[in-house]
C-alpha cells in the first residue's frame, strides 16, 4: 500500500512540475478528460502519434533547410503542422518555438530558422523524455495495483 501511495505522490509531483515548467498546458488536461474505461490508453496513443508525426516533421525541416535554394513556404508549412500538433496535445514549449520559427520563415531568415530548428529539436526530445517518464510512472502505479491520480 505504501509503495502505491509513494508512486502516486511521485506521479502528482512530476505532473505538477511539467505544468509549472511550461512543458504541458491545459490542452493536455483536456486530453485526459477524453480517456476512460472504454479508452484507457487514449492519451498514450495520441502522444505516440505525435511522436511519430514530429520526428518526420523534424527530418523534413532539416532537409528543407539544407536546400541550395530554401523554399520558405514549404518550411513554414512543416512548422505550421508541427505547431498544430504540439498545440493539440498540450506540448506548450514546443509550440512556442514553432511560433518563433514561423516568424523567421516569414522573414526568410535562414540563420533564425536553423536556430529555431535546433531549439525545436531540443524542446521536442526533452518533452518526449518527460512524457515517457510520466507514462512509465503510470505503468508502475498500475502494476502495483493502484490507480493513476486524476490531475484536474
Amino acid at each position, binding site marked *: 500500500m505504501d509503495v502505491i501511495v509513494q508512486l502516486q505522490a511521485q506521479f502528482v509531483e512530476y505532473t505538477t512540475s511539467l505544468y509549472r515548467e511550461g512543458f504541458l498546458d491545459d490542452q493536455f488536461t*483536456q486530453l485526459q478528460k*477524453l480517456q476512460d474505461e472504454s479508452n484507457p490508453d487514449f492519451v498514450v496513443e495520441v502522444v505516440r502519434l505525435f511522436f511519430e508525426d514530429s520526428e518526420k516533421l523534424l527530418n523534413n525541416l532539416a532537409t528543407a533547410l539544407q536546400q541550395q535554394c530554401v523554399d520558405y513556404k514549404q518550411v513554414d508549412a512543416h512548422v505550421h503542422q508541427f505547431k498544430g*500538433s504540439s*498545440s493539440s496535445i498540450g506540448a506548450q514549449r514546443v509550440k512556442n518555438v514553432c511560433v518563433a520559427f514561423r516568424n523567421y520563415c516569414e522573414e526568410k531568415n535562414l540563420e533564425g530558422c536553423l536556430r529555431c530548428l535546433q531549439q525545436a529539436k531540443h524542446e521536442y526530445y526533452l518533452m518526449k523524455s518527460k512524457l515517457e517518464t510520466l507514462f512509465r510512472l503510470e505503468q508502475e502505479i498500475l502494476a502495483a495495483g493502484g490507480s493513476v491520480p486524476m490531475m484536474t
Partner: protein
Amino acid sequence: MARNGVFSRRKWLEKSEGFDLSLSDSHEAHVLAVDDSLVDRKVIERLLKISSCKVTAVDSGRRALQFLGLDEEKSSVTFDGLKVDLIITDYCMPGMTGYELLKKIKESSTFREIPVVIMSSENILARIHRCLEEGAEDFIVKPVKLSDVKRLKDCMLGQDRMESEDRGINKRKSCETSDILSSSPSTSPPSSR
C-alpha cells in the same frame, strides 16, 4: 456576429464530461470530420465519440467530397445510409482548404443544408468572417476542447428542433429559446476553457 465563447449562454446539465449530442433516442448524430493532421483527427474523433456521435474522419477535402458523393457529381441517392448531420473541417489543408470545401458543400443543392463548422489554429478575424459569410455555422479556434464540441450542439439540435415540435429531445438540457432560433454563430477565444 461573434459571441464571446467564454460566457456560456446556456447551462448544460451533463452527467459526465462528455455530453449527449444525439438528436433523438434512435438517431446518433453522424459527423464527418476533415483534417490532414493525424493527431488532430484522433483527437476530434474522440471528442465527438465521447459526445455520442458516429464519426467518419477523412484526411482531405477531396476525400470528404468523395464520401459525400460530390466528387464526380454522382447522385447522392446511394448515400442515404450514410446521412451526415454535421461536417467539421480544418481550414488549412494542402490541396483543398476547409474554406474551399465549405464552398463546394454550400454550392450543392443536396448538401447545402448540412451545417459546416470550420476549425483553425489561427484566430484571424478576416478568415472567420469569410467563413461565416460563406455559410459556415461556426468557427472553432484550435486546439479543440470538449466545451467547443458542446457548442456544436446548436448546429445539429438547432436544425432538428426547428423541424420537430417535440421538446423531449432536450429534457436534460436547458436552452434559451433565443439561442435555438438564432443562427448567429459564435467564435471561441483561444484561451477559453
